[in-house]
């Protein structure tokens, strides 16, 4: 199963590297949203809760782009039939798609977080970095699991572009609560983590539950 998942993942990454469709769009989107927030809030620099909220809401909105494109290549060019005809476990497909989304998010954050530090953040980003990395990683796992599930759910519907954000964003509220409130104290002037463990436990629990649910129900999507 791992070999199959690896093969599908490699295919997805090759396509992404050649077409450069999702990740550049997501990064461009985040930077645009920072500019929007700058003018919308009329502030040159942010800190604390406001900074953490702007960062996380922007990242979640950018992830919507990645999620709605996740099955796009298969749908538009009919590759999905070939994938479904192949005698492989559906779980491998889920693992591959979630892993692809996870990697897209990592690359996105590699650009989006430093860009946030440069453009909007008041206090120094480096001081908060180690804890922020842990939060980002845990949140990405949850985002990847829920994103792959939502993407497969919406893939069959007529109004795919409408369903993905409507379905994904409410499902991500617990993740946003955990990530944003864990990040807020890190982005204050004297960066000191506060209640970090509790929020990481919340994020980890969320990841675990949704990974398990997605693995359990994914077989029933894309069955035919």
């Amino acid at each position, binding site marked *: 199963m791992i070999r199959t998942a690896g093969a599908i993942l490699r295919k997805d990454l090759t396509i992404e590297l050649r077409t450069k469709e999702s990740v550049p769009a997501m990064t461009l989107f985040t930077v645009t949203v920072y500019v929007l927030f700058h003018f919308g809030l009329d502030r040159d620099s942010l800190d604390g809760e406001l900074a953490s909220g702007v960062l996380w809401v922007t990242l979640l909105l950018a992830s919507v782009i990645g999620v709605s494109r996740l099955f796009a290549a298969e749908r538009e060019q009919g590759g999905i039939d070939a994938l479904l005809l192949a005698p492989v476990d559906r779980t491998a497909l889920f693992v591959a798609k979630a892993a692809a989304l996870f990697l897209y998010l990592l690359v996105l954050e590699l650009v989006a977080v430093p860009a946030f530090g440069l453009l909007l953040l008041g206090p120094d980003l480096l001081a908060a970095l180690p804890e922020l990395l842990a939060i980002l990683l845990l949140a990405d796992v949850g985002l990847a699991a829920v994103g792959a599930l939502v993407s497969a759910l919406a893939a069959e519907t007529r109004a795919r572009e*409408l*369903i993905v954000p409507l379905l994904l964003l409410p499902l991500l*509220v*617990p993740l946003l609560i955990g990530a944003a409130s864990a990040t807020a104290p890190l982005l204050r002037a004297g960066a000191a983590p506060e209640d970090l463990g509790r929020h990481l436990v919340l994020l980890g*629990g*969320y990841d675990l539950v949704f990974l398990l649910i997605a693995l359990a*129900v994914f077989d*029933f999507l894309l069955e*035919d």
Partner: protein
Amino acid sequence: MERVYSKGFRPLAIATVLTTVAAFALIFFYAPLDADQGFIQKIFYVHVPMAIVALCGFVAGGVMAIRHLRTGERSWDMRSYVAIHLSIILGTGVLITGAIWAKASWGHWWVWDEPVLVSFLIVFLLYCVYYPLRFSIEDPERQARYSSVFAIAGGAFVPINFTAVRMAEAVTHPRVLSQTGGNLPGEMRLTFLVSLLAMALLFVTLWKLELTSKHASAQLKRLRSRLELRAEEHPAAQPVTR
């Protein structure tokens, strides 16, 4: 086969009417007035049971969806759909009565530091997407399967969401747990329990009614198409109208 959903419907409906009447009688004539909120506190006996039944309905929809995916029987998807549908209707009532209560006792239509209310709104928003998802899939078999997957994910999301929102609030607003259940005086608790029972019975009655109606219209449709088919095969046998 035809009466599978309507079995025991009459006693159930009668029990619902009786309990609802009893609940209203208790609310208005038996339960004492709240010391600091006065008359408006009585909305509690409608609002809280409605919220509890709606949330249980969402989770029950998820459980029925599991049954559907396991057995492959479409009737379980129909049950899950009707449960979620009714829960959304009750959920609208919960948000409206909640807002009225909040306005009367706190002075605002909406308060963000009430974790239960906020969690409920998030759950409600998520389940509103059930309709566009379900009805934008045309193939009926696939529609049932995808709706079930949604119902399962949503059913699991309900408890996670409540925990998460409560955790977010706990830092700034330490609050007493079980404000609604634990420390009620006896008369209020009895009234509350009867109201809860009445709401639960109402939910089951409506659920059965809706299922019976859905079942009947599906059968009617089947009979009609069979009739049309026969009319096409034997045009001579068709009764002359007029």
